[in-house]
């Protein structure tokens, strides 16, 4: 009897060990993209084609800033559990410098990198080595109400002052108290950098000088752009609510038919033209963002990559998963069913994709020219200084932009100084 109990005990205790022997678990830290079934299906297919590998998903918050905190916490603690992680386009430099991300060059040689759009590959490269494989790309675009612009005899604006003029005219003629001219993302968070960068760079200035490692926000052209946003975008054609908006709120305003112009990423096209979710389906146009007179249109590069943790105990299997999820087949599926723009160049010539998403053809130019936020391991502290500055400058009607900009540049200089002297290994 006793023996029987012991044998049963040993049998049950050994079960988990036995099953571990057969299956390797890959832990994938991600957020839940919309619609989730596309991803569920992709992972199920991966498991079906790779018997012995099992993907365990850990789903984190959707906000890039909060997701960053989750992933970096695991990396900082050298958590061997996490194998593969989703990464925003601004993280690879930081993760690479900190020694958290695994260089993928031996899996992902230059020849294969060429099949992807150049901008995200550059963003994933740090000091000559690659740390991520792009899944989809994002770039800022201008959405507009085709019906309203046509009604009032306008074609999409090429300059920011032109946008303000059109919006003011339409608002004055429509006399709809619910309607506003422009909705964007102006909350104090990372999206604010993406938005403000498009104004500042399209006025021929920059966030900071990457060569001299000096802040440039106090320069006249940069201040001029910020002042324009405060006085004309927020002050004249938007309403104060946008100062608390991230992407979903600002898009909701547009799809409810309450905004003439809207700045967002490519996925907004799907939502805005889906009659179940949008009141303006079919009345939406999309073009490159305006520039300042004499400047060139600038779209901030966004997008997400898959990276492998340096502390993973099974990088080979993790790579199998990354390769599958970034393969042509899966990227095509993601593009078809989520409206996310693929990172693989070839898919922009895919007839099936172009039939369902003709907009990709026009967007391609924007993706090719999209400007990444500067790559640096101290991106997060710099971003926090800039978020504070931009929000303080545009949220208060009589803010002292000269003074605020000087302080922001000075603070950025101090952070950038950390990069001086000894060059990183």
């Amino acid at each position, binding site marked *: 009897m006793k023996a029987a109990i012991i044998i049963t005990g040993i049998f049950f205790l050994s079960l988990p060990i036995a099953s571990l022997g057969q299956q390797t678990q890959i832990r994938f830290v991600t957020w839940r993209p919309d619609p989730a079934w596309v991803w569920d299906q992709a992972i199920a297919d991966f498991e079906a084609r790779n018997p012995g590998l099992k993907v365990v998903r850990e789903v984190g918050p959707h906000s890039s800033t909060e997701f960053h905190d989750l992933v970096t*916490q695991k990396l900082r603690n050298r958590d061997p559990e996490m194998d593969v992680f989703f990464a925003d386009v601004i993280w690879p430099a930081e993760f690479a410098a900190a020694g958290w991300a695994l260089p993928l060059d031996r899996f992902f040689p230059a020849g294969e990198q060429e099949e992807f759009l150049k901008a995200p590959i550059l963003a994933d490269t740090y000091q000559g080595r690659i740390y991520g494989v792009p899944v989809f790309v994002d770039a800022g675009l201008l959405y507009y109400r085709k019906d309203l612009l046509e009604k009032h005899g306008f074609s999409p604006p090429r300059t920011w002052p032109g946008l303000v003029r059109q919006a003011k005219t339409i608002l004055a003629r429509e006399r709809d108290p619910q309607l506003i001219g422009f909705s964007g993302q102006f909350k*104090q968070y990372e999206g604010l950098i993406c938005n403000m960068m498009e104004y500042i760079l399209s006025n021929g200035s920059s966030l900071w000088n990457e060569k001299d490692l000096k802040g440039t926000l106090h320069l006249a052209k940069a201040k001029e752009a910020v002042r324009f946003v405060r006085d004309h975008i927020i002050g004249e054609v938007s309403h104060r609510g946008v100062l*608390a908006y991230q992407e979903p709120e600002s898009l909701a305003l547009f799809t409810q038919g309450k905004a003439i112009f809207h700045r967002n990423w490519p996925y907004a096209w799907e939502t805005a033209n889906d009659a179940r979710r949008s009141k303006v389906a079919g009345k939406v146009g999309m073009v490159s963002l305006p520039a300042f007179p004499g400047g060139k249109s600038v779209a901030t590069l966004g997008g997400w990559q898959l990276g492998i943790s340096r502390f993973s105990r099974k990088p080979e299997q993790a790579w199998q998963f990354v390769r599958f999820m970034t393969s042509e087949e899966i990227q095509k599926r993601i593009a078809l069913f989520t409206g996310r723009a693929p990172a693989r160049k070839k898919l922009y010539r895919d007839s099936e994709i172009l039939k369902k998403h003709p907009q990709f053809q026009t967007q391609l130019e924007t993706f090719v020219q999209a400007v990444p936020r500067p790559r640096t391991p*101290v991106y997060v502290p710099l971003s*926090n200084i800039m978020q504070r500055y931009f929000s303080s400058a545009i949220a208060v009607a009589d803010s002292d932009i000269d003074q605020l900009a000087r*302080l922001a540049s000075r603070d950025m200089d101090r952070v950038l100084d*950390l990069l001086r002297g*000894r060059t990183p290994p």
Partner: protein
Amino acid sequence: MKGHRSAFPFLFPSLLFVLVFSLYPIFESFRLSFYRLILTLPWLGQKFVGLENYGDLLTDPVALNSLMTTMIFVAVTAVSEVMLGLGMALILNESFRGRGLLRAIVLIPWAIPTVVSSQMWRFIFNDRYGLFNFLLFGEKTSLYLAPLADPQLALMAIMTADIWKTSSFAALIILAGLQIIPDELYEAASIDGATAWQKFRHITLPLVKPALLLALLFRTIDAFRVFDLVFVMTQGGPADTTNVLQFYGYKKSFAEGMIGYGSAISVGVFLFSLMLSLVYIRLIGARILERRETA
């Protein structure tokens, strides 16, 4: 003496717990606050810089601003919560039908996790479909305010959420204080012909004071560590007007990886809370002694 020694094995588990989970992290924060340690720049190493982080902290306008924001938050919320809590406790101390139910209902806001109630308040303060605007302006949508987008209103909005949430906690502590006041005192006062106000002023208030101070102590320390409301509702904005100290420290340590400087902020918060607690404990201690002497 022998008795003391035999108590040690019994104390050991809790002592170990305090050492590992309270003292060690505090000590470690102190230690790290004397170093320059930036996780994303590992080649800079962990360099001892003495009091440099503290020097930076004292001259960092963002930190000083954030200290100011935190102080306003603490002063307004702690005082309002204790006053509201006193009102609630006085009502809940009366006997009436359904008192048990009401006591349970009053605790609901406190029982809801802060993250959930913060999200709820974010919706209430929404500039387009929020309840706040609807109650204030009804159909006149052109007047609608955007409290979370307005540098002058955002902190107030967050304080409102905090007061709503934790007044009942203060009420609970004060209610316990009210219940130990013997009924005979009120009976005697009635016989002497005291009015309700006189009874409150001369019996209730002096006797409930220790509980009031205790509630104030708990609320002050807790309010000093406010984090989740800001994290969910504003992320420190707009124009940095809701960037409270704990949130700033969190950003430095966890998002920016500036462990040394972040630790210095944590130590600052710790020292401030400690100082405030000492003041309160002194006050409360004095009160209790006073009562013992008169009793």
